[in-house]
């Protein structure tokens, strides 16, 4: 029997598979047994009530979709009074995704959700920072360090920091988060994208631009997981286009300690369960005792020196 358990950023998980934020809610319980998941990750919570973006909020793209949902949120009070109680009946640890427009607001929200029943905080720092002209915190190492420092001071819970793939400095941003006290990195969020309707000449999304997710982005984010996991000592959680067992194994080989599955659930609601079963089967077939043995097991003889691993390939 394969040992599927993993240690990730201060948490011990029964298996390395969990939902990506924004793709998980109570409704999925109709289709899958929640107790089989490694963890729960909530939709991002904000302090204030948010209506979300104008429609259309989603458009299909080759091998994926572009979304601009706009974090509709019922606010932190609703979360504490309702969502928290709903998830108390299940075994997997609850990871709460939070977002705020400033470092101080982030810290206050982190303190507010530091409650019994919350196992860890995932800080979605891919959202716009109003103190930097709306540029996401995770675009730069300095703004990442600042917000993570504030978060670290505000909560004793394990702190996961979700990075954006839209930065050119991801290993640097990851290191900044680690130095500022992050317990794990989630790599990554969606890739900024857009689409235009050829009938109307208008953007396909109500918000013009949105985030691309799904199989189309997998090779890009896989590379970023590889780079980040070599740049930091804390665990990296891979998130980007994972649809099946092979994708999950590939992410773990690249350096991920756990994986998040998002868009795939929209197509196959039991995708996470299939991947958990598939990881067990993969390890059994390959005679791998612990699924955690896969983490970083990619064989790359040219990059023994970690400092070389994340520089650009030779031209």
């Amino acid at each position, binding site marked *: 029997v394969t040992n599927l358990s993993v240690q990730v950023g201060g948490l011990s998980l029964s298996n390395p598979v969990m939902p990506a934020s*924004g793709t*998980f809610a109570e*409704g999925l319980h109709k*289709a899958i*047994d929640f107790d089989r998941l490694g963890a729960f990750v909530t939709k991002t919570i904000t302090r204030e009530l948010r209506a979300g973006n104008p429609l259309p909020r*989603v458009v299909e793209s080759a091998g994926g979709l572009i979304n601009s*949902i706009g974090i509709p949120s019922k606010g932190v009070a609703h979360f504490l009074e309702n969502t928290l109680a709903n998830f108390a009946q299940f075994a997997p640890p609850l990871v709460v995704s939070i977002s705020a427009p400033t470092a101080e607001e982030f810290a206050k929200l982190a303190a507010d959700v530091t409650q019994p029943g919350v196992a860890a905080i995932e800080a979605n720092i891919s959202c716009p920072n109003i103190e930097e002209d709306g540029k996401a915190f995770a675009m730069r190492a300095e703004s990442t360090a600042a917000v993570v420092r504030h978060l670290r001071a505000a909560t004793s819970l394990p702190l996961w920091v979700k990075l954006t793939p839209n930065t050119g400095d991801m290993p640097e941003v990851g290191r900044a988060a680690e130095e500022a006290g992050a317990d794990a990195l989630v790599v990554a969020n969606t890739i900024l994208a857009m689409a235009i309707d050829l009938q109307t000449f208008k953007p396909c999304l109500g918000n013009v631009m949105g985030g691309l997710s799904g199989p189309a982005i997998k090779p890009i984010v896989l590379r970023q997981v590889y780079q980040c996991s070599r740049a930091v000592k804390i665990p990296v959680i891979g998130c980007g286009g994972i649809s099946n067992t092979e994708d999950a194994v590939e992410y773990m080989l690249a350096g991920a300690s756990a994986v998040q599955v998002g868009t795939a659930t*929209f197509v196959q609601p039991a995708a996470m369960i299939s991947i958990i079963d598939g990881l067990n089967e993969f390890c059994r077939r390959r005679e791998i005792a612990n699924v955690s043995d896969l983490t970083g097991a990619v064989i790359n003889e040219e990059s023994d020196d970690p400092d070389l691993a994340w520089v650009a390939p030779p031209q």
Partner: protein
Amino acid sequence: MEWSPTVVAELAPIIANSAIGEEYRHLVVGCGGTALKARPGQFFQLLCPSSGGEQPFLRRPMSVYAADPIQGSLEFFYKVSGRGTRGLASLKVGDVLDVMGPLGAGFTLPATLRHIVVVGRGAGLATLAPLAKEASAQAISVTAILSARRPDHLFSARLFQSHGAEIIALTDQESTSGPANVERILRRLILEGRCDALYTCGSSRLLRVQQRLAREFDIPGQVAMEQQMACGLGLCFCCVKEFNVGGKIVHRRVCWEGPVFDMKEALP
């Protein structure tokens, strides 16, 4: 407590997929017991095959036309209009289709009702069709006001008839489908005491007429709504619509809180 799924994605064999007129098709697939528990107004998410080009990435929502637990069959009626439905049209007997459901909140038929009026137009006729059987099983009498562009598009008329419904067929071709005429018919049914509740799908104009009458005469009603969807399970919030709840505008997910909503709260 042992968990068991109430929504299942399964590979359903195609039993029939035949053209009905020029635009519509009738699809029958074989399904397991969970899928066949579908209630009137619920829908499935179909993973449509590619039709010569690119595979549609997301599933397509499709309301249930009929679910027969004895035959083990699930039926859909669809209009070929986009990439997904073109792919559906290419399915042949013996192929399989990945169907996921049943999804959403369907129609409710309280036992206190004696006479209901069903008002449908175009593809909305398919969504309302399961009400015929359900009402007849509960000994509720049905008047079905069915509207379409042409008489041969009134595809669920026979189904309603077979369950004993009175049919009022309205078509653009015969200039009988306008909202003023529908209002006249509804007022007559209301005055005759034959409209304890209204059920509708497929036309914003007809919804507005019914909302007005529902308020004027304090008649309950439900409307099945459509929206572009991604997950179908209330996870992604891409299918929200605005509703007027006691003067306040609220967002609801069509896939999760709906697709059937209180008629008076809907914004057509």
